[in-house]
């Protein structure tokens, strides 16, 4: 299929993380930004038992053709992970040339933590689990890992964690940054917009500096799509 001259057919983002991290809000922001450029925009809102420490996934898809809010195996152009373990769990959904942008920390599952407390050293075990997880992620050729927690601290507010990660992934969404800013203006309460846009920019800059390891998708508004630039 020659996509070089045709319009970009569609884009799928899978967001993965934990309950309470603000994944649903990120999905809303991406969807609202995408709606400025694409006729068909879907997102999912699966929640289940997310309050009780469970994993949360959300998806956003935008396209020029009718689509569903479902990302099947090997369909995600981008996995945006707010917890490295959950990013690794989402890998089967990734396209062969897809990108992964993820926080590099993990929250170990509670039941493991308890077992470790009884049998060994939880700090040691969780560091080991984190290293194994990052090794899985590093096997993906287009991966960008960053410590969003310490970046958020730089801004003095841990709650902007999610928008730092969105900023880091924003190169790869194929959406202009202004559209994301606009969507944030529409969806966040006015007192929070400035701080979160600052977070978005910090994340964006930081991942840009690591560009060597990952090629961003080109941003397209009305320009043709070039696959895997």
């Amino acid at each position, binding site marked *: 299929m020659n996509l070089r001259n045709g319009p970009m057919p569609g884009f799928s983002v899978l967001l993965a993380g*934990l309950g*309470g991290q603000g994944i649903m809000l990120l999905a*809303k922001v991406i*969807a*609202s930004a*995408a*709606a400025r450029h*694409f*006729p*068909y*925009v*879907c*997102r*999912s*809102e*699966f929640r*289940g*038992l997310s*309050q*009780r*420490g*469970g994993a949360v996934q959300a998806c956003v898809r935008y396209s020029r053709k*009718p*689509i*569903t*809010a*479902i990302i*099947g*195996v*090997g*369909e995600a152009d981008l996995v945006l992970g707010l*917890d490295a*373990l*959950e990013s*690794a*769990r989402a*890998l*089967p959904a990734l396209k*062969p040339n897809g990108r992964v942008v993820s*926080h*590099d*920390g*993990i*929250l*170990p*599952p*509670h*039941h*493991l933590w*308890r077992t470790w407390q009884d049998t060994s050293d939880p700090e040691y075990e*969780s*560091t080991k689990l*984190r290293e*194994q*997880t990052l090794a*899985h992620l590093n096997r993906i050729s287009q991966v960008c890992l960053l*410590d969003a*927690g*310490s970046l958020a601290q730089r801004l003095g507010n*841990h709650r902007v964690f999610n928008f730092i990660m969105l900023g880091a992934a924003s190169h790869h969404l194929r959406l202009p940054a202004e559209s994301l800013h606009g969507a944030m203006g529409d969806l966040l309460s006015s007192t929070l917009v400035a701080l979160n846009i600052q977070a978005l920019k910090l994340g964006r800059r930081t991942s840009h500096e690591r560009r060597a390891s990952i090629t961003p998708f080109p941003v397209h508004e009305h320009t043709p799509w070039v696959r895997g630039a």
Partner: protein
Amino acid sequence: MKMASVLERNHSAPATAAGSEILSGDHAVAWGALDAGIAFASSYPGTPATDIVEILHRVADPARVKVRWSINEKVAYESALAVAIGGLRALAAMKQVGLNVASDAFLNSCPAGINGGLVLVVGDEPECHSSQNKQDTRWYREMSGALLLEPADSQEAYDMARAAFDWSERFLIPVILRLTTRTAYGCSPVLRRKPVKGPSVFAWPKNPERFFIVPSVSRKLFKSLLERQREMSQVLEASAFTLRKPSAHSARRTSGILCTGLGYALARELAPPHWSILKVPGEPFPEAALAKFVRDHAEILVLEEGDAFLERKARLIASDTCRVRGRISGELTHFGELHKEEIRHVFHGAASDPTQPPWPTLPPRLPEICKPCGYHKVFEAIKQIKDVATPSDIGCNSLGGLPPYSVMDGVWAMGSSIGVACGLAAMGHKRVLAIIGDSTFYHAGIPPLLEAVQNAYCMTVLLLDNGTAAMTGGQPVPHKSNDPQTSKVDLVRLIHALGADSCLPFDPHVLGVSGIRQLIEASFERSGVKVLLYRSQCGLYSPGYFPARTETSVSA
């Protein structure tokens, strides 16, 4: 592009259309009902249908629409039924297993029907994400003779909700709107249309020839209901919700997709252009139209969420000339949600998936009881008790059945903990501990408690009062209702009035693990029905109770 325009003809408003919003199916149904001029909505919370009434609570004008969280689904349905019999428009929403509870009222209300539009929204869970089973509501439609509609996306959920009220009034019958997990939670663009006012006069009819369904009346009513089926199916087929897309290769009409609900949305996304499509919008759909589609093709693929409902029908019609592919043929998973990979496999054969590296096996994240919750102390205490039978119930407390506690022998239906305890007590089991939450107790735990009292059974009921329906998002329970008009319920007095031999309230944080253990052990020494009333507010839904979220994430 030509194909797309045929497909888009009826719904799928593009997101860029001015004024459209990206909404979940639940949200779209709530708006559809409001714009159809409802006067009343009621529900008992249950995934994936909770959000409908949650949203109506937020956005409906209380002067025009009365919105209620009911005691259980049966009462939710009956209240809505009364409003509709009186000529106004009403909505009742529930999850699929909730309809089991409401089914007695629902099935028996269909022959006599209603006057104002009555829409029953049911959220099915083909993959059992948060349910005990995968039951498919379309079987209830077969029993009831009601009309059923199943949307493919949020726009259709909105449009169908509005049409459902009109058709309900036209055929004088409740209309079921079947959502499935992914149409309920999937969000896509919705363009609202101009609202209508809906009927405004409530008049309770005195018409026993119609509503007093003694056998002689029932037989007549049922005949008239059967007679209406044909017209209902014709209206459904002629509606804009039925779609037919011819094959792009006019010479090759060999392959067709028979689909409904989300199955259509997936067909629209995945099907190669030479497959023709028949989208069935609901039930009853004319047999003749199905038969024609089957006859016209050498093979059909059936795409539907849940059971092989249409597929069975197609198989009955198909002769040797048409191969019916789907769940029964084994090409799609036998039950549950539709999987894109399997559908692609049917369209393109095996070669579609490029080889992937082996994926790591990762430790799962199990749902957990919140850290400061009093349940930890209770379940730890039960864990230390030997030789105890623990029938338990639906809700947050079900988490006690998972590691690290695993203290529950079984979960069946709402209220079953006490009903099953009755059987255990009848068999002479001396150490029976029924575990049930407060919302579940009100919902279906009161009749079995009366049964226990009536038979002077020996059992302990551990009633966990956390002051809310926590599992579904913190909806109110009767003794903690936000509305002072309805919060006259006193749980302790209720238990005494039911005739329980004792009712001992306790605070888990004061008593501690060993105190709770002793309390339970001591209760086994006494005869009769003993209620141990745990009283500790759920922290998740009472702000300020839990310490601020502390970050324990490990980073470099």
